[in-house]
């Protein structure tokens, strides 16, 4: 016999959802920033005459509604896990390996673009007439490729791209220690689970590689004070929306020597390499040297004078590397070309640099447009 089902439960559920969402948009709290996504949310559209003429109002409205959807993080998370569980992570920006590490998907390096970068770099080295070391950090994904399904692991091209960079080094002042061999060792915990940055151990290994490459003693000859901060969630977790990934513990190594830190784009003189106010924010990483600044000067005021001044040209990886190098240089000048329009060779002269270190992740080195303006 045909069982007649009541249509009402389905109708009630559908209509309830349809009504609750607009009520939330109208009367719910209006957030301006999403800590989980690390971005400012779209503002409530304000219709202007221009909007009506160009009819961009509909896009603004859609952006606002999407950004302020109730349970937005949860919905994004549901879809991220749905994508992961159905095997489609190949199309995403972030891949999860079988140990739960979040890895940036491979990137493509354009050969013509890379040639331009290398021409600039060679010219720079010829201009400054100083030893210039290139420390390129391979991608987290390539380092952990063994933990990915084989078909995904094969897509990382870090060795090929690194080799292209190495083969394009022409200036006699340029050298490039083998970071691929350094990081291509499994189970060392070189990188965070939720972030693309290296851990304190990863930074130490790179610092040692650089110091030995430049004929200095390794870090083990110096004492560092290690601190650990629980609850660190990095940018790959934000990009992935895989919210169930457990947080990391951020570790710092303090050289424990008197020093002063100044920034060209921020007032004040600071006596620490670590800015703990950032531990209260959504992103811990600016704990290292207050995050990215155009030019940062670190002057060591204690310990033996070495007569060495390092010009550290870097992306955010350099922020956690610099504290480890403090005992070896009287002064470290950090330049971030993303925020600094000055001539770096000019800065080398101004600060009396004795050597230059480029510390970049491979992806940033190949994609940061500011390196095309290097001089």
């Amino acid at each position, binding site marked *: 016999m045909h*069982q007649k089902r009541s*249509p009402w439960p389905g*109708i009630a559920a559908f209509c309830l959802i349809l009504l609750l969402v607009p009520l939330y948009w109208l009367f719910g709290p209006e957030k301006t920033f999403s800590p989980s996504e690390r971005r400012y949310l779209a503002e409530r559209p304000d219709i202007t005459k221009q909007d009506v003429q160009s009819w961009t109002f509909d896009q603004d409205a859609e952006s606002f509604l999407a950004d302020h959807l109730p349970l937005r993080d949860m919905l994004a998370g*549901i879809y*991220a896990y749905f994508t992961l569980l*159905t095997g489609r992570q190949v*199309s995403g920006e972030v891949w999860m390996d079988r140990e739960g590490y979040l890895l940036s998907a491979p990137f493509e390096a354009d050969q013509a673009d890379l040639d331009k970068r290398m021409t600039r770099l060679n010219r720079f080295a010829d201009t400054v007439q100083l030893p210039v070391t290139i420390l390129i950090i391979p991608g987290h994904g390539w380092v952990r490729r063994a933990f990915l399904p084989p078909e995904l692991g094969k*897509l990382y091209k870090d060795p090929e791209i690194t080799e292209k960079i190495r083969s394009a080094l022409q200036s006699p002042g340029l050298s490039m220690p083998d970071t691929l061999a350094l990081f291509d060792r499994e189970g060392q915990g070189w990188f965070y689970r939720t972030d693309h940055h290296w851990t304190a151990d990863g930074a130490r290994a790179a610092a040692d590689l650089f110091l030995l490459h430049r004929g200095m003693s390794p870090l083990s000859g110096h004492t560092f004070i290690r601190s650990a901060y629980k609850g660190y969630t990095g940018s790959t977790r934000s990009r992935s929306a895989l919210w169930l990934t457990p947080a990391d513990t951020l570790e710092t190594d303090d050289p424990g020597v008197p020093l002063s830190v100044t920034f060209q784009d921020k007032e004040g003189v600071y006596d620490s390499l670590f800015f703990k106010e950032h531990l209260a924010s959504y992103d811990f990483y600016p704990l290292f040297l207050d995050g990215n600044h155009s030019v940062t000067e670190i002057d060591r005021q204690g310990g033996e004078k070495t007569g060495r001044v390092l010009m550290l040209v870097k992306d955010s990886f350099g922020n956690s590397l610099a504290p480890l190098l403090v005992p070896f240089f009287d002064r470290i000048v950090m330049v971030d070309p993303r925020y600094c329009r000055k001539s770096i060779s000019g800065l080398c002269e101004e600060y009396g640099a004795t050597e230059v270190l480029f510390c970049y992740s491979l992806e940033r080195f190949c994609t940061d447009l500011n390196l095309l303006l290097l001089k």
Partner: protein
Amino acid sequence: MVFSSLTFLFAFLPASLLGYYLLPGKYRMGFLLFASLVFYAWGEPLYVFLMIFSILLNWALGLGMERFGSWKKLLLVISVAVNLALLVTFKYAGLFLRSLQVFLPDSISSAPFFSFSPRLPIGISFFTFQIMSYIIDVYRGRAQVQHSPVLFGTYVAMFPQLIAGPIVRYVDIEKQLQHPEISPEAFSEGTGLFILGLAKKVLLANSMGTFSAQFSQSPADLSILGAWITLIALALQLYFDFSGYSDMACGLGRMLGFRFVRNFDYPYISQSFTEYWRRWHISLGTWFREYVYYPLGGNRRGKARQILNILIVWSLTGLWHGAEWSFLIWGLYHAFLLVMEKLFLLKVLKAAPRFLRHAYTLFFLVINSLIFSGGTLSWMLTWLSVMFVPGTAPLLSPVDTAWILGYLPWFLVCFLGSTPGPRNLALRFQNRTWSGPVREICLSLLFLLSVAALTSQSYNPFIYFRF
């Protein structure tokens, strides 16, 4: 505004349903017309006046046909001419002028007139055909003249089928405009259909779209298997995108008390192209058959004339899909296959085993998706050479392997979803006591996943949006 946008789902739809159901019955169609014009104006603030003009003109011409019977033919000609003129001006003028430029000397072809290319009003191909179905059926005496401009306007502009069909013939909806079937059962059926359509579009079509987009930019980098599977993904994307939209339209119609014609009937299970076109975009096929093929004589005037009629209909069908010559080629491709089937192929196929008939149809449908994707001739030739010329490309590349393995479960879901299997399963168990709750849970999950996907996808266009 598209159905798979948050603006539609959580702003326009609740406001429209609330207004529709809270108002007394006699005001409902007026409200639906108002809501539909708002819906159209959201995406086309200026062209909404074009549509209002078109509605009023054709409504008046319909009344004129009733009142001035002896001028009926002239009024029909005026209506058809004006409707086609609007369609040609907005949709095809740019194509014709661009093509004409090639044959003219530079001094003439560089005139500003030749760069005339107006923006295409959304849904113009759909609502123009709907209006023409009304006026032709009134002329033929198959439909009553609609005296109310509100009801006629509602028929033309009704938002569920306004921008991407199905093409609803006036005769099919004439009575429903007066007496829509308002009931909880109809509303419930509508929500189910709408959610299924939304899931088809957002979960399946968009997934296939992501897959095909990865490879379709540079066919020269493709492997042989990659090229084949990308075209299969394109074919699946096309089906789930368009049939998903049609399901949403039919679902919204049911929620408002209308029953639209079914637009898709599992076309990929077809065993010939003749059968395929009885299952794919049924409302368009019906329209061309009723208003072009039969008036041209159909198959009543001998084989040669029938072939000519097929060529005419399919050239027009191709151009209806897009104002590019590649769509004309696409139409002629279908015409060629249909003519071959009429002449001898259907007889050959009838004698062939069933799997061969499927293989034949699916093979040419895969090639169909290459032509339909609208690439340049050299792009298509490169693609075909990868697929068919040995030694042009490797069998499989690492990138293709990763994508194919990653999307394998989705291909399987799409293959299954394009057969009647899931529907038959649901029908088989529909009388069980648990079928009701299971249906609601499945629909709720699909709705949740679709909204979650929409939250994650910022770019979400419909393929058929601009037709």
